[in-house]
């Protein structure tokens, strides 16, 4: 927008100056000189993007940035990271902050209207979106710039080869950079159980799905919170964040039934074969188990409809028996009540932590639009956050004011934590900001309690976690069409099976419909992509 207006102003000025020049010859010389000057200024700005050190540009420039803002964040312009980094880099970031609710809509309208900002920050682009908008020429391919202008990111790509394969299209283009998470604990949701209730009722940590059932029944019936009312919520989980975006409660429990989550989809890998497990017998057992929990009021009846804020409030209330989250931050004041447990062993002896993300955890966090006049500078700007120094600035703010170093590791100061502003000063809170999350910068999200919970999951993680594959444009379109129908149908029917709105005698029909929608074609596409990956 800003650039368009800029161009418009310049061209109007030029038109006027031409007209004036036509009228009087005397003015001609000065106008030409002015035009030349403007042109050379533009050249200079481009030439002075330094490949290392700060500032990035000698003459200050600014970028318009389209960014998602989470409910917990304060305004971006007040965040210490952007204030300090502007002085350091000479690059001003002008944010258009769009709330998480409705972000998907605004983002797609932005591309549809083709009125793009310079940079998309924390954009949550999906692989299909990047391919669509990248091949349309709206996003800039970055693969040739990364080597020179993104040294930190380049280093990470060399250290973790799965990053490159996860973000490169079959044609060899990289249209967007992901959030890189080298810290294993930030890629899984822990299984938190109320150990205070376990102790009170004299129960052991559950080891199998059957144990869990018995524990939940006890939570429901034996009044573990001691208020005499049956108001305990034995088990809860996040609700789906939107149509086609998955049912968290299914993903969290699927590992106990031998259902993995590979290639960013409901996929099992065995002996080089891709199996989309939606609709298979184990899937049925999983849904039957969840149906049992739901119908006996062990699983929170609001598990399909609650808002994120409601879910977080339930965690903090201490009145919940069993739930899933990456950290203990939402229930920090009562964290002692809870402990993490290992995945539960299912009826066939399966014990797998199926839910989990690859090292390039959040795909499409950062992208540069092709209208950007200084893509090199924009790339160098974001690359800082892929190093530990930049990541510390982004996550912790200013040393002394917000954090202090202990053994070289940043910790928020007690004083700052008491102010309650922790999530307001950093764009990482709420997820999806383009930066590096390593164990160096994770003191807050990875305290000992979370580390312990992660240790219980570690033995049950799959050897390799494959990220979603990148398809070529034609295939991506096909996948798009297939998955639009299949995902919607699968989620709706799974919800109904769990809630008991349809009975399991309809299972054959469910399988048949999935087949009719082209599940086998989809499986074949993923198989081909997997084979290409393994070569």
């Amino acid at each position, binding site marked *: 927008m800003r650039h368009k207006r800029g161009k418009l102003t310049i061209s109007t000025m030029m038109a006027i100056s031409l007209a004036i020049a036509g009228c009087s010859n005397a003015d001609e010389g000065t106008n030409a000189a002015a035009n030349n000057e403007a042109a050379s200024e533009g050249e200079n700005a481009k030439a002075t993007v330094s490949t290392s050190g700060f500032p990035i540009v000698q003459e200050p420039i600014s970028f318009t940035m389209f960014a998602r803002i989470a409910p917990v964040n304060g305004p971006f312009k007040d965040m210490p990271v952007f204030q300090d980094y502007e002085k350091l880099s000479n690059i001003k970031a002008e944010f258009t902050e769009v709330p998480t609710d409705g972000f*998907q*809509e605004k983002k*797609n*309208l932005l*591309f*549809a*209207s*083709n009125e793009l900002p310079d940079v998309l920050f924390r954009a949550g682009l999906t692989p299909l*979106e990047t391919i*669509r*908008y990248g091949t*349309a*020429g*709206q996003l800039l391919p970055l693969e040739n710039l990364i080597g020179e202008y993104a040294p930190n990111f380049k280093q990470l790509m060399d250290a973790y080869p799965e990053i490159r394969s996860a973000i490169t299209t079959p044609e060899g283009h990289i249209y967007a950079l992901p959030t890189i998470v080298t810290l294993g604990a930030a890629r899984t949701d822990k299984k938190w159980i109320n150990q205070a209730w376990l102790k009170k009722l004299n129960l052991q940590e559950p080891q199998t799905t059957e144990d869990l059932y018995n524990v939940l029944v006890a939570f429901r019936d034996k009044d573990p919170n001691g208020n005499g009312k049956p108001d305990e919520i034995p088990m809860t989980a996040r609700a*789906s964040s*939107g*149509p*086609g975006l998955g049912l968290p409660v299914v993903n969290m429990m699927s590992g106990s039934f031998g259902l993995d989550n590979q290639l960013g989809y409901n996929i099992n890998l065995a002996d080089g074969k891709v199996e989309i497990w939606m609709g298979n017998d184990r899937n049925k057992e999983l849904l039957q188990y969840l149906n049992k929990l739901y119908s006996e009021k062990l699983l929170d*009846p609001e598990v*399909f*409809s609650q808002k994120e804020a409601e879910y977080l409030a339930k965690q903090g209330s201490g009145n919940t028996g069993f739930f899933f989250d990456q950290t203990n931050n939402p229930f920090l004041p009562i964290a002692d009540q809870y402990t993490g447990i290992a995945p539960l062993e299912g009826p066939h002896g399966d014990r797998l932590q199926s839910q989990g993300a690859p090292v390039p955890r959040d795909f499409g966090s950062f992208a540069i639009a092709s209208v950007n006049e200084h893509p090199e500078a924009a790339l160098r700007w974001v690359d800082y956050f892929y190093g530990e120094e930049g990541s510390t600035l982004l996550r912790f703010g200013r040393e002394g004011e917000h954090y202090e170093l202990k053994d070289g590791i940043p910790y928020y100061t007690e004083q700052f934590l008491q102010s309650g502003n922790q999530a307001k000063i950093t764009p990482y809170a709420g997820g999806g900001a383009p930066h590096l999350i390593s164990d160096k910068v994770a003191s807050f999200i990875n305290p000992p309690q979370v580390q312990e919970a992660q240790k219980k999951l570690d033995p049950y993680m799959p050897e390799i976690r494959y990220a979603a594959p990148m398809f070529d444009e034609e295939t991506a379109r096909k996948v*798009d*069409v297939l998955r*639009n*129908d299949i995902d*919607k*149908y699968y*989620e*709706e029917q799974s*919800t*109904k099976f769990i*809630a008991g*709105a349809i009975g399991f005698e309809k299972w054959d029909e469910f399988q048949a*419909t999935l087949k*009719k*929608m082209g599940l086998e074609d989809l499986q074949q596409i993923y198989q081909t992509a997997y084979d290409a990956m393994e070569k």
Partner: protein
Amino acid sequence: MKTAQANPTRIAERNSSRPGIRLLKQMAKRYDLYLMLLLPVVWYLIFHYGPLYGLQIAFKNFNPAKGIVGSSWAGFEHFERFFNSYYFGRLLWNTMSINLFSLLIAFPIPILLALIINEIPSKAFGKWLQNITYLPHFISIVVIVGMLKLFLSPKGGPINGLIEAFGGEPIRFLEEAGWFKTIFIGSNIWQNMGWQSIIYIAALSGVNPQLYEAAKMDGASRLRRIWHVSLPGIVPVIVILLILDIGHFMNIGFEKVLLMQNNLNLESSDVISTFVYTTGILKGEYSYTAAIGLFNSIINLALLLLVNRIARKTSETSLW
């Protein structure tokens, strides 16, 4: 239009000369009126007919970078995909049935309300009743849906409280497909009946009081008077409003459906407009959903023409 009505005799006189020249001459004479007409005509051309060219993306593979004109043609591919889709039958049925039930149940209620208000002898009480019934119209849809969620909540909602007090099991109204249409249409009636009755009340006040007196003299009871005087007096208004309603038969309150929708009631709440939103805007399938939208509009137009034709034949009241 107005000019033509203003001097019909003159037009009749000159019907021997060529029609184009005649119109031009007339326009030159009445240029001030035509200048006034120009503004709305331009408005329609720019804002209503101009954007129609964007409809072509329904037959193309729309690519924002290439623009509407530059995108490649796809023919009827998107229409075929929709007609073959698993959701086609369900979307069509839900869209049609919600509207059909709305029309059958919700359309007569404002008329009844207007007749009742008209019959109330106390003017002050009538006004009071009218105000009470049309106030909910001003509540925003988001608030209405929030209220529905509170009232119908299985935990502490008053309706379920009542059911439990009589020994029943609480019902998860908003999460059962079977309840969706009832709740949707019922709350629509509650919200809009007062507002929609205003126009009937106005029409009723235009009925000649002498007719009522005459009917009274003839010994007609109150119901008879309503049946033979009031109703015939407002039939033209009823027919016109019916035709207008049919005109947006396929466009049901999109926001309200979307806000009330969840995976458990999707079976009966998935309608064309929300499908267009979730697939087109949220997933960026512009061409596909433009085709669906176009299909929707064509059904609308067909229904409108059909009802208008029936109305013209049966009651001599119609839009054109």
